[in-house]
């Protein structure tokens, strides 16, 4: 993987800005933290929707699943989970530093792997569906999961689970989670950046452009689709585990399987920035998040109307998104050629 000077400068700039931001803008640290969550959402959604052409409306499922899996592991290490949830917060967790961090790391690992397993199992169901049916089918999974967990006493049903509080100063805890999400988002960015440069990337692009043709060429489409879905689930599972701990309290509808607040915006962010491009989801996530925070601040009461408007405008008039538009306008910048190279035209077979 060769990286040009310009790219290196870009990455360096972003890295420095991201490292100092929580200290310089410390009053906005919670917004900055959620920004990285949104970036991770958009990147993982785009692997499915942008690169492979499978518009999932249910990716939030893995975020919620990861969150719950991790919570059960973390609590279960020291308590009886059923008793703990039945006490509705009457049992206060009291973890040492070491217990907290071991639980968090272990919970996150199990959450990531558990989400992968769920993705593989679900792929048998969802990949029988195409186009809008896939979108609705995946949405159904996310909604059903919220309802099912909401009725499941073992994990606290609708009243959720309280998670251990970060041991230490609150400011330290805030920074800890800021950097945890930052690292998760950066890892997912570089992982998918690498993936799109391999044969795998070509195969999922082929599936996006014409799945029937891909099958006719002998490509094992089901395998690629399952793996892509599982990779998205992996990073979303990690993100969900971290978010539960960041939020200290989890419950099914507003936090874990939050379709309106998180699930749908995954799609909007990727579309806004430009789906199927490397930077589109990142730019879309930043823009969406800034607009969202601004509307919350200045149009309180109308915030969902403003956001709804943004969604409609993006989906109806601006489907190619910012990067898609830029690629059309300046294709050379993106290594896309529109002119045949006449200099080598003589190599053409006579």
């Amino acid at each position, binding site marked *: 993987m060769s990286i040009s000077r310009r790219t290196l400068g870009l990455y360096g700039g972003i890295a420095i800005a991201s490292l100092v931001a929580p200290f310089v803008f410390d009053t906005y640290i919670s917004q900055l933290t959620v920004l990285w969550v949104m970036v991770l959402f958009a990147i993982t959604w785009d692997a499915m929707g942008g690169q492979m052409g499978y518009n999932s409306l249910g990716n939030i499922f893995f975020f919620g699943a990861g969150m719950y899996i991790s919570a059960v592991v973390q609590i279960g290490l020291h308590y009886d989970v059923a008793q703990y949830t039945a006490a509705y917060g009457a049992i206060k967790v009291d973890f040492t530093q070491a217990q907290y961090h071991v639980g968090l790391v272990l919970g996150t690992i199990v959450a990531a792997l558990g989400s992968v397993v769920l993705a593989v199992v679900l792929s048998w169901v969802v990949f029988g569906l195409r186009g809008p049916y896939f979108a609705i089918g995946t949405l159904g999974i996310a909604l059903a999961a919220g309802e099912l967990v909401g009725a499941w006493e073992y994990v606290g049903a609708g009243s959720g689970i309280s998670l251990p509080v970060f041991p230490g100063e609150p400011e330290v805890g805030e920074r800890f989670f800021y950097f945890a999400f930052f690292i998760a988002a950066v890892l997912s960015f570089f992982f998918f950046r690498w993936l799109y440069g*391999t*044969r795998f990337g070509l195969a999922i*692009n082929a599936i996006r452009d*014409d799945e029937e043709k891909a099958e006719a*060429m002998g490509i094992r489409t089901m395998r690629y689709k399952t793996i892509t879905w599982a990779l998205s689930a992996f990073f979303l599972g990690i993100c969900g585990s971290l978010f539960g701990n960041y939020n200290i309290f989890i419950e099914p509808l507003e936090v874990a399987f939050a379709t309106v607040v998180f699930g749908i915006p995954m799609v909007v962010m990727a579309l806004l920035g430009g789906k199927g491009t490397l930077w589109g989801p990142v730019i879309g996530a930043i823009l969406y998040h800034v607009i969202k925070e601004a509307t919350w601040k200045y149009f309180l009461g109308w915030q969902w109307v403003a956001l709804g408007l943004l969604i409609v405008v993006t989906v109806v008039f601006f489907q190619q998104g910012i990067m898609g538009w830029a690629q059309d306008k300046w294709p050379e910048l993106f290594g896309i*050629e529109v002119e*045949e190279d006449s200099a080598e035209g003589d*190599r053409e*077979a006579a």
Partner: protein
Amino acid sequence: MAAMIEVRNVSKAFGGVQANRGISLDVAKGRITGLIGPNGSGKTTLFNSIVGYHPIDEGSIKFEGREISKLRVPQIARLGMLRTFQQTRIYGKMNCIKNMLISVPHRSMGLVEIFGDHSAQELEKAEHLLEFVGLYAKRKLQAGDLSFGQQKLLEFAMALMNQPQILLLDEPTAGINPTLINGLIDRLKRANTEFGITLFVIEHNMRVIMNLAENIYCLAHSELLAEGSPETIQKDKRVIDAYLGAH
């Protein structure tokens, strides 16, 4: 002559429409076999049946002696039988080189390979084949921006990249500029002789198929009407009638 494909008594209906009725034919290994017939006579349907695109209602289809009528499209493709589409299908948002690179054989593609990058030889081969079909100068263009005829050529090159044993071509010259057709016939013949690929070709252009194929089958009204060398087919009264709509 060893048959690479043996079709025996194959029938296929879509609802009330009987598209193929009791068709039996052989595609000789290493040769070029033609399939002609009026519009709607069932040629594409027969191709679809052979490559596993849809289940057949009755009959048997063997590839190198192995029954394949229950296998699905990608499995049959990995056995080494590939088809091109009458409507031409390429990966429109990818450039020509990428279209070629993802068309490598997927028979032995394990997990290590799929997460690897393409090899230098593969790239060289892709460029060579694009040159072979006359698309080298356009190799970095998005495939969707090519003309219909160029997309047909790209689809042919992609099929060659896959190193099939047999290639089923559905009207390879449709939409190709008439002045380029002779060049294309030449390339099809070279694919057969140089790359050793058996060809089974649907073609409407009589001049092309007479020039290309050694043995020709003619379908009419969903049934096999005639078989023979270009000369016998050309003189066959039933074939002439079918084409002139004398039925």
